[in-house]
């Protein structure tokens, strides 16, 4: 059982470039989330989804986009990368929301130079 899989694990982008962070889960979870974690800080919610075709903004959505065409996949798109987007990005999933535990992927460490 793979759980939540994120790719890539590391990436360096130049300012203005774009990229997609991939996230897939094999637990048939309805809820999926994208968080960013800056050094020494907590987790900030970027976007979340409560099911295929349904997404909504979190605390810090600016500069990002998401889509959820299937239950398994929840990619995060960065457009026009900026140094402020340098962070570790975690994807997570849960079965039914706030009353069930979240399973986190191993993270993607992104540096924008």
């Amino acid at each position, binding site marked *: 059982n793979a759980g939540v899989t994120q790719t890539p694990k590391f990436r360096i982008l130049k300012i203005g470039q774009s990229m997609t962070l991939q996230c897939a889960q094999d637990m048939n979870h309805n*809820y999926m*989330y994208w*968080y960013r974690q800056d050094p020494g*800080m*907590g*987790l*900030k*919610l970027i976007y*979340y989804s*409560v099911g295929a075709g349904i997404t*909504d*903004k*979190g*605390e810090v959505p600016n500069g990002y986009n998401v889509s959820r065409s299937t239950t398994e996949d929840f990619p995060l798109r960065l457009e026009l990368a900026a140094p402020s987007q340098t962070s570790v990005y*975690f994807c997570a999933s*849960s079965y*039914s*929301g*706030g*009353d*069930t*535990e*979240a*399973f*986190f*992927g*191993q*993270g993607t460490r992104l540096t924008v130079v």
Partner: protein
Amino acid sequence: QQPVQSPQAVILREGEDAVINCSSSKALYSVHWYRQKHGEAPVFLMILLKGGEQKGHEKISASFNEKKQQSSLYLTASQLSYSGTYFCGTGPLPHYGQNFVFGPGTRLSVLP
């Protein structure tokens, strides 16, 4: 609004106990606790729900005071493996979403 955690950091010797606190200014439906080791993903410890239900690991204990919007995580007879950063997450509703927010974390170091 982000919950407040205290203390910010704590250093223990193996076998000692610790309490980590989490408080919110809003009425809560759930409190979640996660532990994150350096360079790794957060790992689930416990969920406490309004009404008294708890879900989590048997070796971890926690409390949830709904009236005060506070939760405490109790780490007893600490082991070296307990080292890491502990995050609480709080939400007013029975789902995640933008109203569910994580605290800044409490860094715990357990020394031999």
